[in-house]
């Protein structure tokens, strides 16, 4: 269980509380151990391999962007990190996906518990058709949060830079908010679970440029507290907000590098072609 969520350790399963920070760095080249590590990860839908032998470290407290053309497997890869692919018929995973020391696809790993620690924000804003307050409070409430819910909601909304805009209408329906506000609400909802990692699946693709800019600013602020993994097909967005960028093509990881390096001096020809638009 994560450090902050001590309120839910009451279920008497202390065995699951392996904390990433206790690992003795096994990857010597890294100063801090990766938040998530994929080792030779392959994801198949039936016979089709959507993700092929990907090995990648997601560094903690940074923004890692995954870019690539439609159907390159980037979304599938992202969704494997909190096992949202479980809901896809016929998805099959081989290789390892380590969240800290824990293998996400091991039998001992409970996806419900995992998702509490690895939050997710989706392509289209998907607030619950409830009040703004309960949108944020529902996740913690259902997971037996025993602190002050109102405080938690305020804190999450503040972190998502939404508090000022909604503080006087917490009981109104979340569906009355604008698209950009809804997406920030979804971020607040994820943040309220006090996760370690935030997965974002094209979080701005349904928003206009202005709302996009606000979300991007927000992601930039959040990365000091969370590990952010962002899938986007907007290369400029990856360039703007990520610290690291991974480029995928037909299920394979072609190149991963510091973003500023990847966008000025990509080392792989295919990356070069993709980012300069010469692809396909």
């Amino acid at each position: 269980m994560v450090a902050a969520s001590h309120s839910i350790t009451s279920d008497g399963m202390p065995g699951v509380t392996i904390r990433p920070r206790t690992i003795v760095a096994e990857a010597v080249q890294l100063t801090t151990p990766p938040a998530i590590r994929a080792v030779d990860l392959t994801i198949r839908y039936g016979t089709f391999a959507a993700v092929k032998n990907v090995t990648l470290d997601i560094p903690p407290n940074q923004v890692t962007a995954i870019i690539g053309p439609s159907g390159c497997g980037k979304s599938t890869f992202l969704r494997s990190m909190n096992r949202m692919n479980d809901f896809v018929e016929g998805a099959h995973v081989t290789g390892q996906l380590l969240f800290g020391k824990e293998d996400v696809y091991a039998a001992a790993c409970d996806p419900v518990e995992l998702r509490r620690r690895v939050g997710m924000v989706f392509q289209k804003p998907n607030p619950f058709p409830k009040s703004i307050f309960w949108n944020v409070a529902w996740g913690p409430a259902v997971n037996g949060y025993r602190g002050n819910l109102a405080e938690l909601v305020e804190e999450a909304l503040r972190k998502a830079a939404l508090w000022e805009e909604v503080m006087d209408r917490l009981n109104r329906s979340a569906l009355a908010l604008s698209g950009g506000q809804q997406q920030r609400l979804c971020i607040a909802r994820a943040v309220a679970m006090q996760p370690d990692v935030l997965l974002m699946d094209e979080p701005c693709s349904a928003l206009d440029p202005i709302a996009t800019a606000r979300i991007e600013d927000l992601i930039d602020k959040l990365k000091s507290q969370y590990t952010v993994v962002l899938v986007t097909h907007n290369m400029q967005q990856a360039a703007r907000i990520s610290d690291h960028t991974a480029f995928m093509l037909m299920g394979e990881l072609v190149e991963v590098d510091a973003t500023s390096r990847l966008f000025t001096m990509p080392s792989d020809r295919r990356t070069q072609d993709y980012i300069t638009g010469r692809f396909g």
Partner: protein
Amino acid sequence: MNSAMTTAGNPAFFQPRLNRRRWMGRLFAWMCLAAAIAAVLVLAALLWHVGRQGASLLSVKFLTSGESTLDPLTSGIRSPLWGTIWLMGLTTILAVPIGVAAAIYLEEYAPDNRLTRFIQLNIANLAGVPSVVYGLLGLTVFVRGFALRRSVAAGAAALALLVLPVVIIASREALLGVPKSIREAAYAVGATRWQTIRHHVLPAAVPGILTGVILALSRAIGEAAPLIVVGAVAYMRKVPAGPLDPFTALPIKIFNWSEMPAPEFARLAGAAIIVLLILLLSMNGVAVGIRAWQQRRKSW
């Protein structure tokens, strides 16, 4: 428009005949409108005819008195009305929980395998099975098999089976109308499947389910054929006191009266129809109201 720059092709090749097309369009629109009006006229004629026949017989006494063998025009519909109420109550209790549960299974739990597809196909077909056949099923299984005899319970059970597929289909539609993104959102904050269904999917689907259930019941309320087959009696003065008592129902009484040659029975049937239609309309009204409310609320 600078015809100088129409370099592509020769516009002379087009012969749009705009006037003719405009004229045809208007003609067609009028034809369609006429068809729609014709359909409405039938309804108007029906209502007018029924009203003319039965309105004068309507009174509180008509609702509360039994059937008179001496003077048909003093007959009332106490026992068929109560029979119908009994039937609807029991049918709801039997069909709705099972129907909604089955829909939840199919939408939320079922894996995409042969069994699931078979269940779905089967339900779609059940919805198309004529009501008379349900009557035969009820007659064999409930009346004789479970020895319920010709009771309200047997009739309600047959009707419950009749509306079950409709309830399942309507509930599935309602569940399907809840966007997948809402479920994903719930799972992503660490909710279990049941928590997701209980807190988000069901509340969002309830108006749709309710509408479907009401419409299914309003179909059941007018059914005569299966009840006749199951063995509702045409003539009965008593009101059923328990689920195992014999019964009659409004549609059966209407069917019975309308087949009688004497004109006063046509008037009685008309009056009963008015009662039945009022019941139906109010149920439909509730359903339409729920739907309108839901559509206004739903903005995802």
